[in-house]
């Protein structure tokens, strides 16, 4: 009988010995709406997090579901997530919900990293506290095959192109090759809606929501429908512009920098990069700022802060830029031996940000789970006006009503470049 307690003791000791290291190594859960594609997530785990001492569980999540999950965890009073990464507009709805903890101490500690001041300011979401630490940034750019350059309209500066010149360029390409060689990512998972929300409409109307059905917007859609005659009909199947750029089906294409990076790094000698075109009001462009926040009740605040420190290190910022095409938010100098493809990508982002006529347009702010329906309004307008050839004024009146209803329902105030509004942003 004396044997039993001893066995029990040994078994418990063994179990404790097993359990102890597991407990000590409990991983920091890092939820991110960015780097969702399997390849990017793998790079995140194996390269970007490589030098980090702690254990991290990187969990990619759809933007809308990320917000829902954080809200649900707060309501349930049981948090599993210690660090969250998202685009500025995606994290914004978490601010009024009180889900983001102030990170003023982190911002002070990391001051020497040299964050761009305007990016740090965005991380305050208009409050007095730093609620988000900038992590990385990107934008959308144009990429052209060098074979297309001889057909550039006379007198056009590729770095200061207008939409009219882009249309002429497409026409010249079609005349010379018999093929439609402009490309837009209008496939099912493409980012075409961002082109309308951040590039075309701000360029023509100077706004997005308020000017949705203005006479300038009618001009924008009419001229874009005319330009579409020179766009490859495969565009509605294109999700990542790098693929048709590499196969040669598209000679001049628009997409998110992360979705053309493969083409640039694989065949850097074949392509040039330049900013998106300008319209009558200026050069609409959409900076994409990805930031890091710690949700309230995070189980591992110390781990999350250490992770923020690691992700904003100059070396990590450069690895991030060279692997996933998101660029430094700090003063981390890019190495001179940067690969030619990355140099193309960086120069496109820099030229876009430095354009004198630039109209920076934020990603939709404050729409939460309704952001998918917001995008659908622009995509439906595109489908009706451009693909089906319906009259723009009638379509804009109809879609404008849907947009107004959506803004009223969410109560989201206007975001840049629409003028600041007191209540919900109004379609004029």
């Amino acid at each position, binding site marked *: 009988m004396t044997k039993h307690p001893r066995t029990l003791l040994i078994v418990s000791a063994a179990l404790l010995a097993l359990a102890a290291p597991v407990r000590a190594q409990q991983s920091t859960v890092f939820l991110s709406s960015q780097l969702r594609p399997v390849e990017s997530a793998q790079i995140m785990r194996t390269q970007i997090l490589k030098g980090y001492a702690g254990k991290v569980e990187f969990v990619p999540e759809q933007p809308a579901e990320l917000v829902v999950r954080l809200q649900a965890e707060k309501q349930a009073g049981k948090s599993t997530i210690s660090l969250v990464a998202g685009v500025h507009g995606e994290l914004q709805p978490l601010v009024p919900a009180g889900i983001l903890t102030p990170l003023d101490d982190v911002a002070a500690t990391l001051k020497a990293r040299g964050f761009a001041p305007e990016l740090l300011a965005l991380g305050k979401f208009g409050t007095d506290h730093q609620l988000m630490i900038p992590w990385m940034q990107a934008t959308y750019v144009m990429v052209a095959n060098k074979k297309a350059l001889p057909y550039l309209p006379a007198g056009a500066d590729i770095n200061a192109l207008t939409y009219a010149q882009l249309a002429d360029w497409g026409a010249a390409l079609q005349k010379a090759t018999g093929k439609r060689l402009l490309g837009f990512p209008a496939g*099912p998972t493409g980012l075409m809606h961002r082109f309308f929300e951040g590039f075309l409409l701000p360029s023509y109307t100077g706004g997005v929501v308020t000017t949705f059905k203005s006479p300038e917007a009618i001009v924008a859609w009419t001229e874009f429908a005319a330009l579409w005659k020179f766009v490859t*009909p495969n565009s*509605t*199947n294109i999700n990542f512009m790098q693929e048709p750029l590499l196969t040669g089906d598209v000679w001049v294409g628009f997409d998110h920098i992360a979705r053309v990076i493969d083409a640039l790094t694989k065949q850097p000698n074949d392509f040039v990069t330049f900013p998106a075109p300008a319209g009558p009001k200026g050069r609409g462009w959409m900076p994409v700022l990805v930031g890091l926040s710690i949700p309230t009740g995070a189980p591992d605040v110390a781990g999350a802060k250490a992770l923020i420190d690691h992700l904003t290190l100059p070396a990590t910022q450069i690895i991030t830029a060279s692997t996933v095409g998101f660029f430094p938010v700090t003063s981390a100098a890019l190495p001179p031996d940067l690969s030619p493809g990355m140099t193309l990508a960086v120069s496109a982002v820099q030229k876009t940000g430095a354009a004198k006529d630039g109209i920076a347009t934020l990603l939709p702010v404050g729409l939460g*789970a309704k952001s998918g*329906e917001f995008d659908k309004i622009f995509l439906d307008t595109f489908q009706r006006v451009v693909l089906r050839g319906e009259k723009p004024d009638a379509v804009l009146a109809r879609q404008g009503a849907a947009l107004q209803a959506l803004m009223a329902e969410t109560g989201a105030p206007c975001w840049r470049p629409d003028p600041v509004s007191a209540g919900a942003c109004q379609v004029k």
Partner: protein
Amino acid sequence: MPIRWLPYALIAPAALFLGVLFVIPLVQTGALAFQVHDAWALGNFTRMTGDLNFADALRNSFQLVLVAVPVQLCLAMGMAMMLRHLQRGRAIVLWVWSIPLGISDLAAGLVWLTILTDQGYLNSVLFHLGVIAAPEGWLTYETPFALFMAVAIAEIWRATAIVLLILVAGVQMLPKEYGEAAAVFGASPWQAFTKVTLPLLRPSIQSALILRTVLAFEAFAVVMALGGRNFPVLVSEAYAWKHFNQDTGVAAAYALVIMAISVAATLVFLRLLRTPVEQQT
């Protein structure tokens, strides 16, 4: 003495399984579809029918079923009849014919995508034969007929085998005496087929039609791989409303429409192809 509750005990796990994983989600879907902001309303259905893709999705779904299912039935019937007359190698032929059955929907869609895409096998062959000078687009919004044919052919290729297997099973159960009697009375092979074989196969045809029609209304992966947004069907719209538009209410409304159509189609086939009482054995 048989225990009276034993049969019930034996079917209980299956009934429980279906109840938990079918009836409960069905009730939840119904509740989602008829609720807007937690109040009972028909808003999801008006949004669905008012959407610009609804009419297209409905038309595409019906066209696909009306083209693919009859073709599959005819093909499978012909194949089953041919198999009947094979003396040797019957098993191998049947095995080869049922290969598409073992391939997942998405894989089948991707196989056809590699054939029909701009740089695909079809364009390569046509180019080498000198039929075309440059890649021809088959799957764009500008070529709706070619796109529809591509989806229909892929769907026919993928799912004819299931109809074939049901019919082959039915053919195997037919007593030889009927055919021999028809031959004795001087019936031509065609007469024997239409007057004897076809009526006797009615129950198998009924099962095959119900199964195929319901599944064809649910076609998704093949359609997504080949058509994407250019070829909306009811199921892909349900997916888009849930996944891209984040509106589960409208997605649930689509799901209910698909279910209603499937139930209606099943009832029609049950009624049209019912075996008269006097013919039941």
